[in-house]
């Protein structure tokens, strides 16, 4: 079974895949919107911590989503 970090990254990737038919940029934007609407601050903070941790391997989709999320929410990078 997945660890909590893996599960969070998986969730982002899964949302992204469901928007993928919109094309990459739109899919990233839609995923970010979705996360802003539905994730609590702790989950977002956890996502940013994963971005900053070199030991964490994120899929392309999840990484792109978390990066854009950080910019959009004004969280310090």
């Amino acid at each position, binding site marked *: *079974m997945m660890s909590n970090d893996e599960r969070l990254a998986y969730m982002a990737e899964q*949302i992204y895949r469901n928007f*993928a038919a*919109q094309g990459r940029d739109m899919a990233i934007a839609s995923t970010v919107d979705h996360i802003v609407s*539905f994730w*609590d601050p*702790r989950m977002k903070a956890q996502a940013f911590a994963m971005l900053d941790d070199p030991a964490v391997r994120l899929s392309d989709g999840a990484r792109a989503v978390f990066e854009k999320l950080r910019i959009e929410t004004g969280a310090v990078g």
Partner: protein
Amino acid sequence: MTFTREKDFGTPEAMGEAVSLTIDGQEIAVPAGTSIMRAAAMVETDIPKLCATDSLESFGSCRLCLVEIEGRAGYPASCTTPVAPGMVVHTESERLRKLRRGVMELYISDHPLDCLTCSANGDCELQDQAGAVGLRDVRFGYEGENHLEGCKDESNPYFTFDPAKCIVCSRCVRACDETQGTLALTVDGRGFASKIAASQDESFLSSECVSCGACVQACPTSALIENTVIEKGTPDRSVVTTCAYCGVGCAFRAEMRGEELVRMVPWKDGKANHGHSCVKGRFAWGYAQHRDRVLNPMVRGAVDEPWREVSWEEAIAHVASEYRRIQKDYGTRAIGGITSSRCTNEETFLVQKLVRQGFGNNNVDTCARVCHSPTGYGLKTTFGTSAGTQDFDSVQYADVILVIGANPTDGHPVFASLMKRRLRQGAKLIVVDPRRIDLVRSPHIEASHHLPLRPGTNVAMLTAMAHVIVTEGLVDEAYVRERCDTEAYAEWAEFVSDPAHSPEAIEELTGVPAADVRAAARLYATGGNAAIYYGLGVTEHSQGSSTVMAIANLAMATGNVGKEGTGVNPLRGQNNVQGACDMGSFPHEFSGYRHVSDNAARAQFEQDWGVALDPEPGLRIPNMLDAATDGTFKGIFIQGEDILQSDPNTKHVAAGLAAMECVVVQDLFLNETANYAHVFLPGSTFLEKDGTFTNAERRIQRVRKVMEPRNGYGDWEVVQLVANAMGLGWTYTHPSQIMDEIARLTPTFAGVNYQMLDERGSLQWPVNAAAPGGTPMMHIDHFVRGKGNFVVTDYVPTDERTGPRFPLLLTTGRILSQYNVGAQTRRTANVNWHEEDRLEIHPHDAENRGIRDGNWVSLRSRAGETTLRALITDRVAPGVVYTTFHHPDTQANVITTDFSDWATNCPEYKVTAVQVTPSNGPSDWQQSYRAQAEQSRRIEPAEPAE
């Protein structure tokens, strides 16, 4: 309310133009098609009758209801003779009285004369009618051939059939046919030898009877009678209330004798059930008095300690101080709450208010997370509102009914009866389901198409149907142009037209022949009014939300939203799951589905509640459990939900609960979740409190207190005690005041109040200035969001895949007699129908594994292992196995994984890759779980006061 029988007009209501006639000198206008009997009853002239009752079509067999009509010869039966313009009817004359007495005499001469000791004494139509026709003496004597020696059938745990009391009026047979649609009863033999038989002259219990009680209700004598009436006597008062089991929301008369409930009788004026019921609401209410019910609050320091009974004051003070301590130690967001779809609107509203106002965060979620959260997301995105479009009665106007991922005869039985009636009248049926559910073929019903798709391929299937509709030119273009966002439509139409989405292209994936998919799509698009009904087989998938949107797309493309007989209709599971969602139980929304970041909405609540509210969404249930195992979430208030049994991946749920410092469970019983609780607050049943439930048609109905809460408080009062111990200063003295607050803060409930509910019986939201009487059907002229929104739903296969280790797909469901985790139904005689969860497996898969019917098998997935017994059946396709999750010993959710819907985290219960092998007994997990549960349930009684 004192006890009065509901008025019986003798024959059903008619709908025609007004016709005037005279009855016993009184002029009356009634709809054409009305029987003389009904017309007379409308002017308070009750014509004697035995074989007629207004829930059934008239039959004309007893000949007691004869009347005279001027200008017509003879004495026609008033129940089978329709009114005609200018007709002059006489219901009383010496000749009529004599004829009726003669008929009655024949009946009575073959009936035991033990009225005074009969259980139905005072509640028997035969007795009443004998009085009404003035029968004083029976000339034929009682010595002749009779039926008085017939043997009683006491096999059904809830009712008894005594053939000696039967007058062979066939009301029971017709009730089973017309009202219930099971056709379990027949009149066996002819003339004097006729008798009532269940199935092939079997006992009721072993027959096809589903114990709905319709026949018992229809029976005019005590031939069919509730066992509780035999035991407790006839009722002396009644209170109208709402069933607390499923989302159909049947209205009942709780018939009482003093403080004791004698029977629950479906209420004829109930708008959702029209006087019908199923075995659960009608009979399975004994759990309220079950000895397992916990009535005193309990506290303990750690979950391996025994429970200590304490006073309410001590328990509540402990909860408040623990929550405040945790927030001080770990932060405001370290605690949260879960509202219950079993509780009232008022109670769920208070729990989310406790969290938002008292805990100061949005960490509130509800069991809808694990069932219909994708419905909320999908229908809001496409139509603009998180609810079904129609009322139940709308199905009577449907020409084509598409049932996908739902099993209405088991899950929503009373609505299924209504649907089956429409199907028997000739509406066409399409079933999309991996399993051959009963509807596919039942008496007088046969689905035009059953598409037995592989679990997890719903989106591919619906997109293929859309492909057929778009590429074959079957779209209702005028509707789409006028009602929908045409840009979104164009994008969607282009997407679905891609040959990669054709039925042929996905045939291998879904396992359904392309020709069947094409034929089903054509029928849906061109067969007239087409309605879609769906259930958890749609939502509980990794693409649950996409599936809901794909359904909405189909309905919009064919113009099937906004008129009778059409629509998108989620069959909601729990009695108040719609209400729990409406009341702001989700961590991102206030009541009425307004996002917590919506400044205007938040300001309204802040002003009313006098505190600043958190604009950030809170944690969903699975996120709470993750946060708990991460050490940041430490306390929870769980009202009326057993997440340990009902939520996926039991081991993860257990780990999450075990990591918390203050788990408070409020429930009727020490449920499985309570094994991990530090505080247990006893709950009250729906019979013990006032409030409202909202059913699957958005219908708000009253729940009325019929007896005092055995635990001392209604659940809303307990939440208020906790809130006040945390310093919130709530002052509600009756749930109606909570509803007034809901109405004040929720635009779709603006016009709802108890007085109006009492006057009208029920209201369907939105109820506001634009729709003061409520809204039976939504999106009539325009969608709530303005233009209907087509959403591209790309098929993304689940990551839960079969392979060599786990070659079979497990899907789960429930059955008629049990209810979800079974906390209530397992504590009633319903166990007669379902003693244990079984694993359905196809004969081919069973044979390959050396498994025989009834063998113990081990069921294993990546998440865990359990054992249960096998049931070999071709209802499931090869490669698919199926089980229910009603019994804690089985722990089917040990098997389910933590994959979930991409948009809402609704768990993917319906697809788990598993292996099945022969087994000797319980798995290690089951054994250690049982030991833990036993250990955890010990109770130390309170020390006696000095």
